[in-house]
């Protein structure tokens, strides 16, 4: 059991000091009344110090451990302590990145068995620690307490918010020509058998399963697994410079949310999705498809922390060997303070990769944060950024300039064909 720390309030100190002062004054002044006063205060304080509830058992459980941004989690606590004197105070520690939606993570309770619940909102992706619960046993007059920690810290996984958007195909997509097909467990026009279903008039005759027909007396047709068509590679800019703006809304967070939404849609359409995250270092995740791929990608996106200053150029050079021939590339970056952008995009386009650059405007995020006053410095930066985007467009890449005023839905509409 964890060790308890004891502490006394200022009020307890004041009572003790008053009692002693009155005692000394009563002796000096030979005053019975001051002696009575001293004894009354002393007795009350000592009475309160001797009474304390038993050490409580506290359990705290979350109804979910994995949520998406802006979703809520309910935390239920059960507090069980012996005795009837004194008070119990419980405080469930929460990550500063979590917000209280309903109730409070601090509860003052009488001893005995009681329940306490509160709801937490998760506005920001990440692995947020919750707990342990700090428990204080107070005396009846709240003069002193013993404090200990109960339970183990848990992680609340908050995935980036995903937006449905309009379904379609990515504008840059094109079919992949590879030596062998890749099977995914979905119905399609492949060669591998998937299941049997009843015949409809539009089914070709060569799909009829004659053995099944002989067995059941009804026409049955075979269904086959589909084969994937496209690998899509995302380049996500996770440099510190991309954090300009609010904690919950900045170029990095926008890029991550768009990437999560697009990945989900692409994987649903039997594509494979890979990630290159650059910032403090370059991390490459090879293209994955099928069940489990989305979960894996979401975990990688959740774990991103904006830091470092690696460039797009270095990440492209590093990731070239992982790129499938002619696979579409989506670059999600504010493009700020990166002199290698043009060279990197030229390299990708030159190697035959259809390239789409979605660029949340860091300059405008910064302007929205500090003031709406237009200063020459902003105009120069804005002009420089527009020139860069225009230049990237002229190289053969498709460019989407993402203003902070437009949401992820808008970006999805721009990306889908």
């Amino acid at each position, binding site marked *: 059991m964890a060790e308890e720390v*004891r502490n006394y309030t200022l*009020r307890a100190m*004041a009572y003790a000091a008053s009692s002693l002062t009155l*005692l000394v004054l*009563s*002796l000096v*002044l*030979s*005053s*019975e*009344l*001051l*002696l*009575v*006063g*001293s*004894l*009354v*205060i*002393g*007795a*009350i304080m*000592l*009475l*309160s*110090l*001797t009474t*304390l509830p*038993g*050490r409580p058992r506290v359990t705290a459980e979350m109804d979910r451990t994995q949520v998406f941004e802006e979703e809520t989690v309910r935390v239920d606590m059960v507090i069980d302590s012996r005795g009837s*004197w004194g*008070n119990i105070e419980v405080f469930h520690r929460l990550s500063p990145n979590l917000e209280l939606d309903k109730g*409070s993570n601090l*509860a*003052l*309770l*009488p001893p005995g068995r009681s329940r306490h619940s509160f709801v937490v909102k998760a506005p920001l992706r990440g692995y947020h620690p919750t707990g342990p619960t700090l428990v204080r046993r107070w005396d*009846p*007059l*709240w003069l002193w307490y*013993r404090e200990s920690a109960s339970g183990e810290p848990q992680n609340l996984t908050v995935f980036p918010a995903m937006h449905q958007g309009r379904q379609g195909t990515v504008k840059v997509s094109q079919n992949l020509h590879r030596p062998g097909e890749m099977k995914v467990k979905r119905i399609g026009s492949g060669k591998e058998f998937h299941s049997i279903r009843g015949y409809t008039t539009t089914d070709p005759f060569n799909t009829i399963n004659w053995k099944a027909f002989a067995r059941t007396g009804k026409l049955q047709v075979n269904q086959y697994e589909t084969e994937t068509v496209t690998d899509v590679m995302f380049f996500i800019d996770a440099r510190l410079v991309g954090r300009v703006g609010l904690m919950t809304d900045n170029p990095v967070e926008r890029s991550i949310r768009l990437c999560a939404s697009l990945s989900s849609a692409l994987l649903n359409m039997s594509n494979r999705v890979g990630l290159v995250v650059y910032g403090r270092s370059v991390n490459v995740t090879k293209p994955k498809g099928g069940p489990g791929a989305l979960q894996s990608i979401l975990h990688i996106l959740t774990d991103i922390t904006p830091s470092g200053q690696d460039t797009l150029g270095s990440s492209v050079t590093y990731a070239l060997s992982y790129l499938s021939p002619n696979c579409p590339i989506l670059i999600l970056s504010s493009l700020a303070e990166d002199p290698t952008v043009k060279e990197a995009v030229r390299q990708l386009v030159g190697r035959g990769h259809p390239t789409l650059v979605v660029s949340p405007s860091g300059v405008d995020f910064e302007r929205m944060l500090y003031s709406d006053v237009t200063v020459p410095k902003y105009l120069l930066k804005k002009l420089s950024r527009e020139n860069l985007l225009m230049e990237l467009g002229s190289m053969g890449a498709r460019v989407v300039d993402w203003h902070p005023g437009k949401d992820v839905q808008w970006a999805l509409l721009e990306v889908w064909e």
Partner: protein
Amino acid sequence: MRAVLQKALLVWPVLCLIGAAFILPIAVPEIGTFQVFVSGSLEGVPVFLLSVIGLVLGAAVSFLRSRWPRQTIRYGARAFLGLGAWLVFGLVISLFLGEGSYYERLKGSVVIGSWAIIVWTLVCMAPTMLGVHSVLYRSTMARGGTVLSFLLLALSGMVYAQASEVRVAHQDPFLSIIFIWAVLGFLEGINWRNRYASMDYEAHMSNILLARQVGFTLVFMGIGAVVAVAPFLIGDWPSTYYESTTILGKALVGLMAISPLAVLSLVRNLFGR
């Protein structure tokens, strides 16, 4: 219901002091004996009546201050400056123009004597006057003034009667108990207010906790009073250890009465679960 309770919690600390300022002069007449030192006799307006006048004046001051906030403060400050100037004037006059030793000059000065009577009258009125003002006008300065004037008034009654005599004079412990209860009621009331009045928490649970804390406070104050008065009721038994008629003897007996609690507290604190 919750709103009423919150308002009650807000005014309770000061109400304790105002109530005690009324009860003390009635229950313990010793409270006004300090007037003998101020004016030489106990004649004049009784302390209880001054408390009632203070009550009315407090309401009047609150009304004036809500109507003319700046002017009331300005004239109030000038009145206090005038009192200070009066004292300086009295000191200069009596010390330079009086006869006899310096103490005799001060004691015989009519100017200083009249100043002392005014100040004593203000101190007697202040607990109720400033208390009512702090409740009606929500003035924290007035609340502080209430505490200070109540302490002055009560301690003057508790200390002067004893200090003016050479021997250990028997005094009614009721005075001390009411004084301590009022001060504890004020301090605990501040704690209740801070903890429950603005508590963003379930009202039901808050009420339960408040009721428990109030209950425990009342029980502890009762037990504390019994423990404190016990040495005065025992009689001659402790005189075999020490003379119970001396203050030191009473203190020893009192400490003996409180020692079981002290030992229990020490054990619970050092070896408690």
